[in-house]
């Protein structure tokens, strides 16, 4: 049987037709079938072959019609269609990179803007996420609650603590919690190897149950068990100790035989029973060892004891913190009444209230609002940065109108053009994103030095996969946002207009073209955001300055302070004698104006609290419960601290055990309990281990002092002469205060050496100037002010660069118009005015919106402000002036360029 395909092909080619292989195949099967049928009907081979040849001849005659057209084929198939989306995308990316390399300035500005926006946002996100959202590192962290105690209607003296009474009643009978544990942080213990020098470390006394609450396991040895804690009359004796991983490495080189070894902690022997793993951080990073402790019973040895400490509980599964709160409060009300001590510690002796607060919430309560406000601010900043890049892209898109029109004319669809533009922004976004991530990592390295030491949960902040994912998503979102706007305008490209016009914009520039309008709108938005951020930053800075200069009641300049911790077995006589020696050695040194000691110092340690009953001299018929802060001070303490004596006299050298007992009160105490003539009145019932001599004559009144924050209300305070106090507990810690005539830091070494001379085993820590303490206390407000000011500065730079760009572009577009105007007699100042008016309109609208936004937004800031109203008039006037000045500077260069347009050249060029 003949093969019909070659025969068919030859026949078609001979007649000038080129048939598809597909068609040839089909005709060939037909021919074969016809041949077979003819043979079956009885035709001989030749006859059949001839008949089929006739058929072929017939087909060839109509050869031109034998063609199958591919379905839906376009006249000019676009080159990438048959190579798939991905290949086309690569082509777009390559083209985009080529374009950006030809415009390095645009690429640099766009990527830098993106990088700063993405970097700042990611860094702040990582901090917010790590601090506020990341679960604590303990097992089942959502069941951990901090337990706090208050008295109905009163603010406790030390927030976030509970007392021993409710602790014991709740421990004895609980159904909503699995366990409750407490701890006392001891910031200045000393630790020494058997025969080594003591060094100051922070330790915590913890209840054995605390480890159960945390579900912690030791790396070596064991945890505390009930009975480990010292009991009875010698509460200060440490018998066992658990080391942190760091201290174990440092002191024992990480060897396992550390277990069972004896160290000296605060002068007492303690046996190492356990080592915690390196990731066990509790309650803070500074704590390097733990000692066992159990809060004392309220009624022991016939004495009422009340202790306050921090407490943590673990909820039973399925129990809410509200249920635990209810149970805790019920148990607390069953605890023995601690009497007046409750008044001293909790401000009142009403019914106890226990609150169980999710642990993360309490830890982060004071930074949460600030972080959220800063996150909102950085989001605004990111939007501004993205909008700026979009605006730059729009300007490029306008310059590339012809390119887009040509591409559209030769068959590129809207989707194709959009993809090209989005691909170009994606390159900017990816470059900016990468640089932003590098910035985030750099910021992370710097975080420990940028953030205040007491910033909570810093160890949870890390550049992890979630943070990187956030940065990547941010980059993609920003790129798409930047690319879509120009693409939206490219979509409406007017082929004929773009290809035929001469490229110059219509008269009026800016607002007459749709991209010009879009860029002006972006500009208005940028100015509004800058205005909001700048107002916020200015308020925070003003508030910080106010905090710095606020009257704290004492004078922190040129004051050096240090803390001493005494071993428990030092008697009161030994303590005062040591301290007297130290200040006596310091006083005569050149440059030292005063040296004194006491048991309290603002921003460091608060001394003691005391509650007692007294009959106020102004109304002796009633007995009131006074609750006061109690300080023990040496002569010269007020002078050293710069605390002004407003009436009577300060504590003197002559106030000793043998002289009448005297006391100095602060103005709040005098006003609250003693009336207008406090000198000569007396305060009873202070105890102070003076046996029956329990009457203290008021000899002086001093100014109120702010202990912690200047926003705290001043508390009633009593100052007792150290030489008249018999109780060791009144001087368990001492502070040395030295006022110098010059810069105090050089005296730090002197203070240390003087202390060492007197008592080599005494640990000195926290040697700092009072000004540094104030600055440390203001670290958070300073941080918030600096961060927001940084954001505002960045936003203002972006707005200025944006305004410069928009105006320069508009001036370039209006060159011919300016030429015509100049030719018709417009002077340089007319044209400058024209450009400036355009700028100032934009700025004016932006500022108006910004000020309205700021008025609404600064209410969020009101909780952070001190000494300045959220609607501070000076700020709201100064910020617009600053922004207008910046805008004028940004517009001057383009305006001068417009004024210099040579009419002839401009018109000829057009």
């Amino acid at each position, binding site marked *: 049987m003949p093969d019909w395909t070659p025969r068919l092909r030859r026949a078609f080619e001979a007649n000038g037709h080129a048939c598809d292989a597909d*068609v040839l*195949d*089909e*005709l060939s*099967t*037909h021919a*074969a*079938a*016809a041949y077979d*049928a003819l043979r079956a009907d009885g035709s001989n081979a030749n006859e059949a072959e001839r008949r089929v040849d006739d*058929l072929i001849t*017939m*087909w060839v*005659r*109509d050869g031109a*019609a*034998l*063609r*199958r*057209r591919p379905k839906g084929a376009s006249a000019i198939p676009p080159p990438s269609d048959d190579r798939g989306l991905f290949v086309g995308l690569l082509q777009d990316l390559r083209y985009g990179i080529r374009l950006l390399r030809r415009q390095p300035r645009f690429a640099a500005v766009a990527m830098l803007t993106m990088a700063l926006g993405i970097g700042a946002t990611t860094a702040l996100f990582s901090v917010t996420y790590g601090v506020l959202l990341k679960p604590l590192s303990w097992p089942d962290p959502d069941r951990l609650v901090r337990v706090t105690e208050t008295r109905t209607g009163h603010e406790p003296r030390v927030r976030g603590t509970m007392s021993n009474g409710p602790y014991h009643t709740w421990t004895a009978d609980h159904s909503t919690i699995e366990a409750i544990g407490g701890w006392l942080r001891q910031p200045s213990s000393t630790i020494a190897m058997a025969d080594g020098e003591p060094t100051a470390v922070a330790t915590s006394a913890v209840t054995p149950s605390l480890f159960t609450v945390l579900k912690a396991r030791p790396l070596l040895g064991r945890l505390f068990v009930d009975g480990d804690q010292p009991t009875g009359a010698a509460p200060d004796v440490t018998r066992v100790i658990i080391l942190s991983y760091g201290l174990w490495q440092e002191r024992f080189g990480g060897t396992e035989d550390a277990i069972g070894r004896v160290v000296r902690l605060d002068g007492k022997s303690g046996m190492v029973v356990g080592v915690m793993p390196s990731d066990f951080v509790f309650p803070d990073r500074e704590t390097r060892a733990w000692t066992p402790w159990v809060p004392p019973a309220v009624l022991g040895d016939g004495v009422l004891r009340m202790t306050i400490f921090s407490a943590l509980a673990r909820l039973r599964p399925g129990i809410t913190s509200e249920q635990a709160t209810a149970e805790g409060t019920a148990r607390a009300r069953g605890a023995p009444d601690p009497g007046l001590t409750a008044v001293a510690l909790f401000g009142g002796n009403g019914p106890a209230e226990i609150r169980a607060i999710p642990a993360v919430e309490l830890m982060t309560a004071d930074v949460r609002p600030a972080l959220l406000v800063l996150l909102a601010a950085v989001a605004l900043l990111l939007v501004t940065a993205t909008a700026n890049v979009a605006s730059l892209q729009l300007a490029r898109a306008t310059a590339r109108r012809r390119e887009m029109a040509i591409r559209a004319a030769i068959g590129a669809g809207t989707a194709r053009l959009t993809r090209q533009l989005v691909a170009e922004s994606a390159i900017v976004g990816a470059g900016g994103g990468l640089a932003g991530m590098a910035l985030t990592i750099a910021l992370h390295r710097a975080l420990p030095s940028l953030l205040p030491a007491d910033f909570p949960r810093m160890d949870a902040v890390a550049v992890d996969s979630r943070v990187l994912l956030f940065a990547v998503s941010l980059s993609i979102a920003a790129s798409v946002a930047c690319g879509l706007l120009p693409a939206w305008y490219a979509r409406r490209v007017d082929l004929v207009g773009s290809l035929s016009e001469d490229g110059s914009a219509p008269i009026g520039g800016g607002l007459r073209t749709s991209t010009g309008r879009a860029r002006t709108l972006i500009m208005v938005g940028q100015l509004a955001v800058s205005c909001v951020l700048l107002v916020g930053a200015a308020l925070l800075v003003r508030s910080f300055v106010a905090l710095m200069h606020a009257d704290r009641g004492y004078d922190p300049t040129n004051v050096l302070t240090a803390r001493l911790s005494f071993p428990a077995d030092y008697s009161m006589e030994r303590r005062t004698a040591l301290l007297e020696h130290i200040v006596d050695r310091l006083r005569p040194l050149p440059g030292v104006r005063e040296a004194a000691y006491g048991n309290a110092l603002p921003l460091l340690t608060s001394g003691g609290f005391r509650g007692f009953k007294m009959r106020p001299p102004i109304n002796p018929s009633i007995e009131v419960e006074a609750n006061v802060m109690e300080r023990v001070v040496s002569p010269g303490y007020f002078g050293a601290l710069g605390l002004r004596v407003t009436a009577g006299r300060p504590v003197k050298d002559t106030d000793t055990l043998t002289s009448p007992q005297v006391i100095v009160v602060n103005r709040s105490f005098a006003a609250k309990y003693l009336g207008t003539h406090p000198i000569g009145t007396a305060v009873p019932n202070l105890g102070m281990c003076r046996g029956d001599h329990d009457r203290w004559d008021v000899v002086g009144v001093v100014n109120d002092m702010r202990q912690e924050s200047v926003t705290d209300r001043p508390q009633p305070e009593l100052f007792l002469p150290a030489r008249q106090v018999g109780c060791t507990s009144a001087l368990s810690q001492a502070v040395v205060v030295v006022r110098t005539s010059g810069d105090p830091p050089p005296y730090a070494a002197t203070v240390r050496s003087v202390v060492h001379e007197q008592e080599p085993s005494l640990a000195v820590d926290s040697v700092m100037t009072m000004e540094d303490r104030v600055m440390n206390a203001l670290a958070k407000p300073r941080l918030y002010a600096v961060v927001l000011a940084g954001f505002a500065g960045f936003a203002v730079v972006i707005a200025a660069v944006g305004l410069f760009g928009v105006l320069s572009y508009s001036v370039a577009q209006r060159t011919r118009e300016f030429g015509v105007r100049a030719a018709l007699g417009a002077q340089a100042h007319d044209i400058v005015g024209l450009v400036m008016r355009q700028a100032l309109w934009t700025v004016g609208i932006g500022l108006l919106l910004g000020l309205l936004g700021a008025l609404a937004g600064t209410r969020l800031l009101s909780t952070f402000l001190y000494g300045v109203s959220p609607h501070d008039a000076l700020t709201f006037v100064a910020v617009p002036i600053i922004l207008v000045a910046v805008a004028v500077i940004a517009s001057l260069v383009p305006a001068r360029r417009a004024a210099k347009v040579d009419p002839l050249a401009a018109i000829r060029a057009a």
Partner: protein
Amino acid sequence: MVTSLLERELKRGSTEVLILALLDERQRHGYEISQLIEERSNGTITFHTASLYPTLYRLEDKGLIEGRWVERAGQRRRRYYRLTRGGRKALAKQRSTWDTFFLALDRVAGIRHA
């Protein structure tokens, strides 16, 4: 001239409707279609086999039929055509048009169709 044009259009239209009608029953290949047209009209409709394939390709272009290559064991590879949804609609329309046409012929000229 006018007659020949009409004849050609008629023929062209009728070829299309014949093919669509045959494919309405089941899918078929080109040779089978040509054989069936010849057989069923008892040779009355002797259309040029030459016009079969151009018609098939035209119908395919219009989306009324679609062809695909089918290989069966022991047989040659063949291209089978079947009606598309559009083709089915077009056939129904053609049928009603032809019905109307024959009805008109019957009324006007007394020509009946079976």
